[in-house]
């Protein structure tokens, strides 16, 4: 009995030593502010008056009657769907190419990864310049009507521009995860498939993709959760322009809380966004986990 408790104390000590710092940081930076935020939504606290009275669910009632919030959520859903889809398709395709032993493979991998190192704000400003000036110059000289005006001033094209920049930013990062997935497929299984006469495409769909399901789970989770919370790119590239047509959920919440000074409503909307993201991301992971196969 003594041996057991000594072992469990040692285990607990090891746990504390390794997990402790991260757990403390997580609690202080994420958990406590989150719980405090949830508490604030049940009050009418505002940094201006600095008084707080309990108001129950009044803030949450306001969330569903805030039409612009529902609109921004719908736009965000569309943005997340398309950016997740295209990011992963492009990343998978790049990873497939760059694991088939082409020349200068390492150089290309590094090159495709580099956009991810540029932060969202700088990226947004650079692409804003490109869309407003470079693309329009190309459009004018090649006489392409669609490109002669900036894509960012048209409500439908602007969201497409955002998806384009998101794919450009994340494809390289996801590509690295897929490359690791490809490289992790045991060689003997691939040889066995070749011996059995599997063609390239068949091998891809029957052997490679099922063994890469963990990579898909991770990559889709990343793109979906980051897509829902997109703010820095939204701010730098469009700032909601043209006239609020590309205002996604996070930006709407920010403007509601800090511009319109409706802090309670803004915080309640942020909680609703969190719940939506949590449901979508967790169900995505659980659903796709069923497709995992053992090698």
């Amino acid at each position, binding site marked *: 009995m003594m041996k057991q408790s000594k072992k469990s104390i040692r285990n607990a000590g090891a746990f504390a030593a390794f997990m402790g710092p991260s757990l403390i940081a997580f609690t202080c930076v994420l958990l406590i502010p989150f719980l405090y935020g949830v508490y604030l939504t049940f009050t009418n606290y505002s940094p201006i008056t600095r008084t707080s009275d309990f108001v129950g669910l009044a803030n949450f009632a306001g969330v569903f009657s805030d039409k612009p919030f529902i609109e921004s959520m719908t736009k965000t859903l569309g943005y997340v769907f398309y950016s997740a889809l295209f990011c992963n398709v492009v990343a998978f395709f790049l990873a497939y190419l760059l694991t088939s032993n082409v020349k200068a493979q390492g150089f290309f991998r590094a090159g495709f990864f580099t956009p991810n190192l540029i932060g969202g704000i700088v990226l947004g400003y650079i692409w804003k310049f490109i869309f407003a000036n470079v693309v329009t110059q190309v459009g004018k000289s090649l006489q392409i009507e669609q490109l002669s005006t900036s894509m960012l001033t048209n409500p439908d094209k602007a969201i497409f521009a955002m998806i384009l920049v998101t794919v450009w930013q994340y494809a390289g990062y996801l590509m690295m995860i897929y490359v690791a997935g490809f490289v992790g497929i045991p060689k003997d299984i691939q040889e066995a498939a070749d011996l059995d006469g599997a063609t390239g495409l068949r091998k891809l769909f029957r052997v490679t993709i099922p063994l890469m399901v963990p990579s898909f789970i991770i990559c889709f989770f990343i793109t979906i959760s980051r897509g829902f919370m997109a703010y820095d790119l939204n701010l730098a590239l469009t700032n909601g*322009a*043209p*006239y609020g047509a590309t205002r996604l959920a996070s930006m709407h919440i920010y403007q509601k809380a800090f*511009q*319109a*000074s409706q802090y309670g409503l803004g915080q309640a909307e942020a909680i609703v966004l969190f719940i939506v993201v949590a449901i979508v991301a967790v169900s995505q992971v659980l659903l796709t986990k069923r497709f995992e196969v053992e090698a």
Partner: protein
Amino acid sequence: MNVDPANVIEYQDNLLELTMETAPWLAQANDGVIDAGTFGGKILGVPFSVQGYGLLYNKRVINEVFGDTFDPATINTQDALKTFLETIEAAGIPATLLHGANWSMGGHYLTLSYAVQGPATSDGTGYIDSLKAGTAKIEDSAIFQGYMDTLDILIQHNYNKADPLVGDYNADVQAFAQGKCATFFMGDWAWTSMTALENIDTEYGFIPVPWSNDPAAYGNSQVVMVLPKFNAIDKSQNTPEQQQAAIDVLEWMLTQPEGQQFFLDAGFSMPYKNVRSDVKYNTMTQSIADYASQGKTINLGCFSYITGDAWTQTGNLMLQYVSGAIDRQQLADGINAYWQGIQ
């Protein structure tokens, strides 16, 4: 701290009141300036600059079209403006430039419709209150319709006509500074963005933005003068000694020559009586000062009371109108709905 007027109103319970006893140097301010920082009868904010906006014009380009005989006082009716712009266009130069940002169209242009309702601040704020209550609809205001008619004229001659919403401030300022267009709906702060550019024109002036054909109507021969920022002292989180120290700092900054030099070097026109008289302002600020000395200014006091996301929301509506996405009735409906939705 240096804040927007709207912030002074929002935080007024937390701000220190300045009185003639605690801050006798307030007497150095020009008339009406201290009133602008007075809310609820208390002096809560003191300004350090006077700025203005209207239709900026490039003197070199105008002289090329009209010869040296151009007199800005002749632009005091809508028809006069129309002829003026058309003459410039006929000479082959884009006549005007609208900056496609919601603060320029919503915060500055649309606010003219409220401010010109009457010369007192309460005329503007009273009108906004009636919009909020739903007792007034903006499309019923002849002033609003007049300003939108003028905007239609400006939109027609906009240098950015092909793509009006790009809203690249540096590109627009640069285009104006290089003389690519003759006029620009902007304020005298545009000069601070031009100082970094080379090979630009340096002589500018302002003309009013007329809304009707009655030269005597308020707003047709005046440019806007606004006190855009206030210095305020917080009283909620510091000691009385610290507050007194803050008052002393403000006195030094605003009424002592050394302190004033900082603002004068930045090109701000300071509304205090004891400012060095040998200061040469840039031509834009000088033009505003000339209008002010003739008493030909539009009081934009109601601007201070437009809080929250008014610029963003009504500005977005204005941008939709400028780009042709909505028509004037839809614009009016949107503005009415915004004000009625404000708590």
